[in-house]
């Protein structure tokens, strides 16, 4: 266990005032510089966005119940799937773990009082809110039906979408990402507690570092791309639209140069959370610590070089296709190593199946499926058949929802006692997790089959192919079960807030620094600056 310098007992001084009580009033939240309060404000907005994106998902699945029209016309459907994608990617998944768990836990895990730049942190929150406002404005006005990918020349010419404010939303949101990335990198370099070398940092911190590298380097490319798209649409500068002398494939290169690393922004934090969960709930140090730490960095770097696997049928050169395919296979190796290492951590451990661990094991199951189905898509020949079909939709939902979202929920449950000072009901928490797990698989497993049988994505109707009806219906039923599961999860967590029982400092027998301080922590995180003498997952032998 990383030790505090003078205290050997595991219960810290009881007089420390929790950060909630330190200051009161709405102003003390809106103008706070405390990373913990900022994290909670982000959490509120991200969960709200998740509800919005989730409602849109249900609308999609309801419309696809029958081959023809069920509840909406084609243009409305196209707006619904586009909005679902934009909200989930930019308002939920990209910020999710870094802005909530990262902001809350990073200073605690490195033994610091706060992030390196608290004001920048608050500013990045308000930039997120501003971007979200532009996004919500677009949705409430004409809406957007270009798909979240904005391919040209459809996005530069469609009259059915309010494209410009949505592009501005994306542009503004990007700055929130960049500022968070800068804050994390500087914090990790400069504010680690004495004795915490890089190889004594928790794996969640390594994951935040790798993610921040991508946030800083990739996001500007998206910003520039969206701005150029705006100029094309408004002033016809002739860059992406052939009608004005531009090249639609150029747009795809620019767009995916960000959007592929973006998926690593989404999943690498998840990997960090999962490492923490496997170590704590096996009561054992993680297997292959260095491999996991360095593989995150490796994925971040290599992940910049394989964007073209989204473009195998686009008209790019076959040589480009071959290089992108090869690099996509290379990046699968560090990912596979993590999966093996997590599994090996269980070996000869002392396993506790509390709710966070249920999420971690679900992650292993779902992410492995997502990752393995990526191998189909990375294959140049197979992708010719599977590209733009439901196989792709199923693949990315397995990694984004089964991966990122389940890791996020696992982390929320794991650190819930630390953040709120409350304990949730573990039995009902487990039921919620399992319901979500079952609902998720029922929703998306049939979609692999729909895809390989030839059902394209972004299709409003499948009237001429009624043979797809049964699989679509299973998928819709699954979505309803998934929704019920999520509502149960929310209910369990909200219910805990009303319980009188106080959570102890270390309910899960964790070994990282955040468990050495009260639940919830005081404003300055630690009464005394921690001093680190060993690795993050070392623990004393059981008696």
């Amino acid at each position, binding site marked *: 266990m990383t030790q505090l310098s003078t205290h050997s007992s595991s219960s810290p001084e009881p007089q420390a005032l929790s950060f909630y009580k330190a200051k009161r009033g709405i102003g003390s939240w809106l103008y706070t510089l405390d990373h913990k309060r900022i994290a909670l404000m982000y959490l509120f907005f991200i969960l709200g966005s998740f509800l919005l994106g989730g409602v849109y998902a249900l609308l999609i699945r309801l419309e696809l119940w029958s081959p023809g029209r069920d509840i909406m016309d084609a243009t409305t459907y196209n707006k619904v799937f586009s909005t679902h994608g934009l909200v989930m990617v930019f308002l939920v998944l990209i910020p999710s773990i870094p802005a909530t768990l990262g902001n809350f836990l990073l200073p605690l895990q490195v033994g610091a009082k706060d992030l390196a730049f608290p004001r920048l942190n608050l500013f990045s929150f308000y930039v997120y809110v501003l971007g979200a406002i532009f996004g919500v404005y677009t949705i409430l006005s004409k809406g957007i039906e270009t798909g979240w990918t904005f391919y040209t020349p459809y996005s530069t010419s469609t009259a059915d979408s309010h494209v410009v404010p949505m592009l501005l939303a994306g542009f503004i949101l990007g700055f929130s990402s960049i500022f968070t990335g800068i804050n994390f990198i500087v914090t990790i370099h400069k504010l680690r507690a004495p004795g915490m070398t890089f190889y004594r940092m928790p794996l969640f911190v390594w994951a935040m570092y790798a993610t921040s590298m991508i946030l800083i380097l990739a996001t500007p490319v998206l910003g520039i791309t969206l701005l150029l798209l705006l100029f094309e649409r408004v002033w016809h500068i002739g860059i992406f639209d052939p009608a004005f002398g531009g090249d639609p494939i150029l747009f795809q290169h620019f767009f995916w140069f960000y959007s592929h690393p973006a998926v690593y922004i989404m999943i690498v934090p998840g990997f960090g959370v999962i490492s923490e969960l496997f170590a704590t709930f096996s009561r054992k140090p993680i297997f292959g610590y260095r491999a996991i730490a360095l593989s995150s960095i490796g994925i971040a770097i290599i992940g910049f070089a394989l964007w073209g696997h989204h473009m195998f*049928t686009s008209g790019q050169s076959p040589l480009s296709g071959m290089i992108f395919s090869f690099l996509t*296979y290379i990046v699968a190796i560090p990912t596979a190593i993590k999966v093996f290492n997590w599994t090996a951590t269980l070996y000869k451990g002392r396993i506790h199946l509390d709710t966070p661990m249920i999420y971690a094991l679900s992650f*292993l199951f779902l992410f492995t499926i997502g990752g393995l189905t990526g191998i189909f898509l990375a294959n140049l020949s197979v992708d010719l058949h599977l590209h*733009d079909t439901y196989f792709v939709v199923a693949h990315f939902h397995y990694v984004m929802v089964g991966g990122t979202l389940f890791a996020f929920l696992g982390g929320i449950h794991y650190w819930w006692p630390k953040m709120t000072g409350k304990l949730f009901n573990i039995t009902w928490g487990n039921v919620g997790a399992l319901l979500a797990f079952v609902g998720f698989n029922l929703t998306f497993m049939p979609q692999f089959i729909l895809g390989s049988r030839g059902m394209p994505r972004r*299709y409003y109707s499948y009237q001429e192919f009624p043979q797809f009806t049964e699989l679509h219906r299973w998928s819709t039923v699954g979505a309803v079960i998934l929704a019920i599961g999520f509502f149960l999860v929310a209910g369990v967590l909200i219910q805990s807030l009303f319980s009188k029982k106080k959570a102890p400092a270390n309910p899960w027998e964790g070994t990282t620094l955040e468990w050495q301080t009260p639940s919830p922590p005081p404003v300055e995180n630690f009464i005394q600056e921690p001093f680190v003498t060993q690795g993050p997952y070392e623990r004393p032998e059981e008696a």
Partner: protein
Amino acid sequence: MNSSFLLPEVASTSAQRVDEPFYFVLWVALFFFFAVMICCALFVWRYHHRRNKKAALHVTHNTTLEVIWTLIPLALLVVIAVMGYRGYLDLSIPPHNAMTLNLTAQKWQWTLSYPNTSVEVSSVLKPELGNRRLPFVVPVNRPIVLVMNSTDVLHSFFVPAFRIKQDVLPGRYTKIWFTPIKIGSYPIKCAEYCGTNHSGMLAEIQVVSEEDFQRWLHNENAKSIAENNKVVPPEVRGKRIFEGKGACMACHAVASKDKQPAPEIGPRLFQVFGRTEQVYIPATNTKTSVKVDENYLRESIEDPNAKQVVGFAPQMPTFKGVLSDAEINDLIAYIKTLK
């Protein structure tokens, strides 16, 4: 080969290039998935804290194991990558003796033309055929290459039974080739989102014997030449433009609802001439009613968003510069016949 549980029927030589790596990857994936999951399940059961009282804290490394589980997956992935390359290169390079056909994509129909003939087939659903479409006829066992172009946005030509897909771009030509091996009809689907009726942008490829194909091509060509040479009334010329170059049929139905059910993307033109329409005029932000006459029809073709029929999205493109005055006259003549 017939369809399997996961894949559609096999109707081209290309399919083998896709199905082979597909099934290889499937077996590799299933193996690793079950290997990991079974280990997990075993460990969770065997080392659950009620069954295992003491964790082995020192078990954090095993260099041999880690090297093995890095190198074996790497080797497998290299094999899989190379399987993909061979198929992909094969599918990118049409054979020398391939028959070239020209494909045009536009919102929301496909048009196939056969060089050295006047034969042009469009994929729109025709009410006079009981709301069916004419198929794209091709001969079996002969390599065929499609030179493709879009007149508006990105589309993608996808034939699941052939296992082929290629984006169709405006401002550029892309190619795709196949050799059909089984007589029959196979769906063509658009696989790049292109707006309102993306899911309705479908066509049918019909593979026939070589003699049947030659006979069909010869007859169609003769019919087409005869049509082109005939002095035809403007209404008939207008119908050809409506269903061909103008692609009007993609959005505007021309028969009654029971004869021609349609997604109503644009106003139904059945009995439109002389009708009174409610329109919205964006220039003055007012609503008014107009009587559909020759002038209104011409304005709708050249400046479609000047007056927008209430209840429809303003998404009709302009045909000014695309259709000549004579062609617009012919279209108006045809529309007047839609009783």
